[in-house]
């Protein structure tokens, strides 16, 4: 908006040249961490205000929130279960963001993945071990999400249709389609879900650690962590990943360097959709063993928050998923004192605060650097 005065610009270049290596790594860390810290602080303040409005003591509510989540192994198991789905949707969105694309469609990609996995499960012969069926289920879930994501990628690559709008519209279209298929052909009467799958139910964490008893956490958690590692490797250690990030930073420059942005967009959205689709396994195979309408329950949108707070880095995504899962589960823990809906407000506040403070922190750090 305003151009810096000449002497300021000169100042920047000399100081940065003098201490470039040290300063750049430190300021990069500051740029990455500060917005999330600011966001948590803002969320804590808003949370306090809401709790006070409801006539409760913030300290007592936050203590209860902590005890109900990290304070006992059932609560922690529930946090891990919720974090599993959020890791997939957060990773899906972070992956697309690295290619410069905003995938708002993780919600329907997640649902489509869970749906297709359930369909395949209904067709499998009963009684097969999960070790045999897991690859089949994974392929189905990835296909379900990948087709939806890939469609948005194609629409952008072929026709230049903006992926934000197409993924939002696809959310409504895909969810309506799944609702139609479930309602007319698949559901058990009087319910919103399909028959129970007779093959390939995954072990829960409580099968290995008895103290998790009753919580829904299951081995899809391990798949989520593996997905993060693979995504990291793909993004930062392969040629394809380098091309993807190049297109994300500057499509015109990447094209000049011999990369076809259209192909990268389609590929990135397909993979992003497939990752979100895999998240459907957490509910369908790990928890209920059937597809139920509406199981995604907003995890696709919360994934946007996870991706942003996690700095669009696979490792950060895992940590951010834990944070948001804690907030979600914490709402249930404190429901007796304040309406659980207050955590929905907190989650939205965190997103706004991060989105606002990322550019602001960058600007302030730049000013500080030019002064120092």
């Amino acid at each position, binding site marked *: *908006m305003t151009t810096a005065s000449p002497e300021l610009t000169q100042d920047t270049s000399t100081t940065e040249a003098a201490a470039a290596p040290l300063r750049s790594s430190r300021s990069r860390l500051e740029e990455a961490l500060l917005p999330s810290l600011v966001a948590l602080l803002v969320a804590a303040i808003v949370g306090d205000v809401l709790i006070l409005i409801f006539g409760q003591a913030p300290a007592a509510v936050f203590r209860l929130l902590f005890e109900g989540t990290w304070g006992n192994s059932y609560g922690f198991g529930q946090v891990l279960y919720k974090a599993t789905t959020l890791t997939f949707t957060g990773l899906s969105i972070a992956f697309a963001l690295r290619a410069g694309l905003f995938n708002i469609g993780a919600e329907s990609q997640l649902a489509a993945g869970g749906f297709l996995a359930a369909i395949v499960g209904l067709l499998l012969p009963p009684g097969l071990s999960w070790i045999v069926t897991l690859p089949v289920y994974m392929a189905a879930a990835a296909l379900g999400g990948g087709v939806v994501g890939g469609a948005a990628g194609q629409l952008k690559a072929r026709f230049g249709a903006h992926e934000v709008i197409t993924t939002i519209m696809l959310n409504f279209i895909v969810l309506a389609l799944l609702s139609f298929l479930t309602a007319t052909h698949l559901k058990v009467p009087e319910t919103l879900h399909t028959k129970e799958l007779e093959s390939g139910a995954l072990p829960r964490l409580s099968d290995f650690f008895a103290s998790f008893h009753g919580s829904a956490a299951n081995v899809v958690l391990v798949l989520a962590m593996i997905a993060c590692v693979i995504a990291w490797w793909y993004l930062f250690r392969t040629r394809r990943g380098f091309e993807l990030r190049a297109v994300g930073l500057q499509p015109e420059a990447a094209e000049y360097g011999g990369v076809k942005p259209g192909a990268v967009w389609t590929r990135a959205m397909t993979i992003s959709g497939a990752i979100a689709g895999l998240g459907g396994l957490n509910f369908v195979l790990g928890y209920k063993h059937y597809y139920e309408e509406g199981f995604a329950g907003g995890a696709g949108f919360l994934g946007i928050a996870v991706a942003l707070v996690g700095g669009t880095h696979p490792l950060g995504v895992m940590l951010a998923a834990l944070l948001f899962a804690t907030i979600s589960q914490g709402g249930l823990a404190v429901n007796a004192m304040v309406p659980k809906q207050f*955590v929905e407000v907190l989650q939205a506040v965190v997103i706004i605060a991060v989105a606002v403070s990322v550019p602001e922190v960058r600007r302030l750090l730049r000013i500080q650097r030019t002064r120092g």
Partner: protein
Amino acid sequence: MTALLFLAQTLRIAIPYLFAAAGGVLSERAGLIGLTLEGYMLSGAFAAAVGSYYGHSAWLGVLAGIAGGGAMALLYGVSAIRFRADQVVIGIAINLLAIGLTRFFLRLAFGSSSNSPRVAGFGGEQSGTGFLALVSNPMIWLGILAIPAVAWVLYRTPFGLRIRAVGEHPAAAVSVGIPVTRVRYGAVLFSGVLAGLGGVYLVLDQHQFTDQMTAGRGFIALAATIFGRWDPARVGIACLLFAAAETLQIQLQGAQLLPSQFVEMIPYVLTIIALAGVVGRAVPPAALGKVSGE
């Protein structure tokens, strides 16, 4: 008679779309993405329920609804204009915030997690689906006027000219002395008020607020904005078209010609087709989503 009833029902369904889409046109023509329409509507609806219930007057509900939609729009404006936060992120967050806040305050104000008590509306207790109830409801008339009003502002007033300049070429707007930031705030606030009125209509028509009662109508309005290529007249027609499809589905429910889920898809499918440019490409305002463009 059937045709008249069909028109009346189409209009009733279209009113919230017309309000919100009028807001969508204003916001997007000024360069701010209209993902927030759903959130404006929901908070406008809730505020209207509070105002109408505690003020015992439908008109106080209207005022409160205007404030509710406007407050959300102000938050969007400050985040996206002052702090230059990503509009898509803020847009999604505003919608989540509206859901969370309305649920929280539903518990606080009415002690319920699903709906408010009965609130005052227009047309008294016996407001049915009849034609008289329709023409005696001032919100219907406001809704019909929303799109023409926005068209008049955009094409016949200096403010509208500035909005269009800011949305197409902010740098040029700055160079001729247009206060870009102020114009953007104005457009966003108006869009929040208009979409908020869409929510007000729903509450006063149904005489209560229910959790998530806007049910994606803000996104249908966004679809109409894009499908109508950001031109008020076309956008208005798109709203009526989408509403007519819904009415047809409701009236033919017995016939089972088309499952309701497929009727729900119509606005979204048409929007994707319009964006893909199969029949006349939809080209958004040049500076849409790029507030730091000046």
